[in-house]
């Protein structure tokens, strides 16, 4: 019997992996991918709650999260390409102009 806890723990582990990716990696593309991983972890817990509460709202929210994620990825990757064209690097340690 798979309970809600199973899914929540899996989702928490995926979210922690996404956080680790954002904190550890220096490659802008991989950081964007880690953000995607975190959103997917949240989606998983939304769907699990929707299943175990017997309500469809969780799945509808997942659709909206996917819309936001798609928009974020498109704009983020466009920024990454623009930065690479101008600076020739995607190492975030070299792109620190706005970092106090």
């Amino acid at each position, binding site marked *: 019997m798979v309970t809600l806890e199973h899914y929540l*723990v899996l989702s928490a582990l995926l979210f922690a992996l996404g956080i680790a990716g954002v904190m550890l990696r220096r490659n802008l593309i991989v950081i964007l991918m880690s953000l995607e991983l975190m959103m997917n972890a949240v989606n998983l817990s939304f769907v699990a709650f929707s299943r175990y509460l017997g309500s469809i709202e969780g799945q509808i929210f997942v659709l909206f999260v996917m819309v936001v994620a798609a928009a974020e990825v498109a704009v983020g990757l466009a920024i990454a390409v623009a930065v690479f064209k101008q600076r020739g690097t995607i190492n975030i340690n070299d792109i620190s102009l706005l970092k106090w």
Partner: protein
Amino acid sequence: METILFYVLAVVTLLSAVFVIFLRRPIHNVLFMILTMIGLATLFILLHAEFIAMVQIIVYAGAVMVLFLFVIMLLNLEEIDLPREPRPLRWGFGVILSLALVVMLFPVFKSIAPIINGVAQNGDLAAASNLDLIAKELFTTYLLPFEIASFLLLAAIIGTVVIGRKLTKS
């Protein structure tokens, strides 16, 4: 049967997520990310959310990851240009911090999950088709958020075109 399936899928998803974070070359990261997406889609099917599972495969494993692949191909980073990853000390620090987050989340699960497991399984989701229910809710109760989402996508398209445009000398 369901339990075995869940554990196999969970292990595959977690392992490929670990490879996403800890492999060095971006192309390997993207390929393992696709595996993670497919694992999550199968988990959604296990949760009787078939429509979300299909959208996950089409939008994430299809569109978003192909976008990542295209950008990696466009940038064409050689081994030398790849960003140097931080020292082992910082790796350890980051891993410990994210583990601390998981440990912090566990009491929340312990308090929430039994309540919901008590409420659960009233089974009105299994009665109607998943797609039917989503469509009905999306085009009645959540019509305004749906329209706002379309505006958001339009803004993203315009923003991407403006940012990705060739830089004019001014």
